[in-house]
């Protein structure tokens, strides 16, 4: 029991450090990619190729004065960024980044918590994330912040539905709520050697899920809660210094986690199909799996960044119409079709 606790603690610390480092890299990548898209150079002065720019930004945020508005609700103003970052980080706990690794004679699962209800855990936590933004908006006692908070709660409620419904399609095919088993099901190959990834089996669910994931992580074209031209800074208008930094951090952690979930549910997860051909087994296979996972996640993140710098923001009524009148019916229709086909296949 003591040993399990130590292993779990080590995994948590390692994951947190990795996530924080990745955020720094992602911010740098985002700035360089945006510069590329807009035909600029981007940060290139601090460190080699500007790699240390994000580190310099973090130091700047740490040194800044923390200003709380006079009429703000201080405890909740402090609590909101903590909720945001806590929820964003703990979602990663159930995502498997590999099968098992043998270290010091022990089999170690490559995820923090192997729970029976992995997907539901993710859904539960993403539905908690909205409180950080909403409370930030409310406690600042500022019109723009409040509007940002309101928009965020309406947006998340609307897109959570289509997200949940599109996940059910995946669940029907995998027959399990455990992320590890969902990945295992995708390791097989279909006719003609295509990997049995859910993106091929559930293409409609993939599209609706990715769109909903953009909305849930408040990334452009769905960043209505912080639309600068309309709302100054949206929910974080009244935040400065480290607390603003925490919101930034949680936005990027959310992006990493969303990419990891997309990879796990739809793009085959960590599964490395050619393990036998290359004669890999044990720890070398585990390393190959982790690398597979990282490359896939990195590509999805690159896609998300490219979308941000190519598409304009939705208008608010367009956002709601898309969520309720397009996304939800499509996701529901996909669910009905999938369930019918599966029932027919079982019946025949």
């Amino acid at each position, binding site marked *: 029991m003591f040993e399990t606790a130590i292993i779990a603690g080590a995994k948590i610390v390692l994951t947190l450090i990795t996530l924080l480092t990745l955020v720094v890299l992602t911010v740098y990548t985002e700035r360089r990619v945006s510069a590329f898209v807009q035909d600029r150079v981007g940060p290139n002065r601090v460190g080699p190729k500007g790699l240390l720019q994000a580190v310099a930004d973090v130091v700047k945020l740490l040194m800044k004065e923390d200003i709380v508005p006079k009429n703000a609700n201080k405890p*909740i103003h402090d609590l909101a960024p903590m909720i945001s970052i806590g929820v964003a980080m703990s979602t990663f706990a159930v995502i498997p980044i590999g099968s098992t690794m043998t270290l010091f004679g022990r089999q170690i699962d490559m995820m923090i918590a192997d*729970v*029976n*209800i992995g997907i*539901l*855990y993710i*859904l*539960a936590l993403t*539905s*908690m994330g*909205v*409180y950080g933004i*909403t*409370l930030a*908006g*409310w406690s600042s006692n500022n019109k723009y912040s*409040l509007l940002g*908070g*309101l928009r965020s*709660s*309406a947006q*998340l*409620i609307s897109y*959570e539905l289509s997200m949940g419904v599109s996940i059910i399609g995946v669940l029907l095919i995998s027959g399990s*709520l455990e992320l590890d088993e969902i990945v295992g099901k995708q390791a097989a190959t279909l006719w003609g050697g295509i990997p049995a990834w859910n993106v091929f089996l559930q293409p409609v669910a993939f599209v609706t899920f990715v769109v909903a994931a953009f909305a849930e992580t408040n990334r452009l074209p769905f960043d209505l809660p912080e639309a600068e031209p309309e709302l100054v800074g949206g929910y974080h208008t009244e935040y400065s210094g480290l607390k603003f930094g925490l919101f930034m951090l949680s936005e990027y952690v959310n992006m990493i986690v969303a990419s990891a979930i997309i990879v796990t549910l739809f793009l085959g997860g960590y599964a490395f199909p050619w393990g036998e051909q290359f004669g890999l087994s044990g720890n070398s296979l585990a390393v190959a799996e982790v690398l597979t996972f990282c490359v896939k996640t990195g590509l999805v993140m690159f896609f998300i960044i490219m979308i941000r710098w190519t598409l304009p923001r939705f208008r608010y009524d367009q956002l709601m119409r898309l969520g309720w009148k397009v996304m939800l019916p499509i996701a529901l229709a996909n669910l009905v079709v999938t369930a019918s086909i599966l029932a027919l296949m079982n019946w025949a």
Partner: protein
Amino acid sequence: MVNIEVVLFVVLAVLFVGSGIMVITRRSPVLAVLYLILNFFALAGLYLTLQAQFIAVIQIIVYAGAIMVLFLFVIMLLNLKDEEKLIEKITARKVLAVGLSAAVMFEILYIIWISTPGIERDVAKAEELGRVEAIGKALFSDFLFPFEVTSVVLIVAIVGAVILAKKKLD
């Protein structure tokens, strides 16, 4: 060595009752909502100590994640101010209400006091029952009719809500 389950139960139960009291004593509606969310989390934790993973996570998704967001949304949209303090008068009805609630509480305490833990505790079986598979099987075989009727009731409620929300039907 104290059983960890007992420790968890005591911590969660104190949190549960404490946050419940905070909900009804706060004057700011937003604070009351926040304590209610904490209350739901404590309840979900209690479900977890009973090995009911599925119920616990559904408690969070549905109540803490969806319904309370709507509560918060409406409270923020209406910009509700703190409740004003009223001067309360003691009436016969209030005395009766306090007496009756006290009686119910003493009954519950008495039942807990005289009852002996007669049920055999079977953790493996409880864990089996708390899984999604077991709940799904029960829901779609033994309880299929109530399940379907509930969905019809919910559809009716949704249609009613849409009609009420739409000012003019086209």
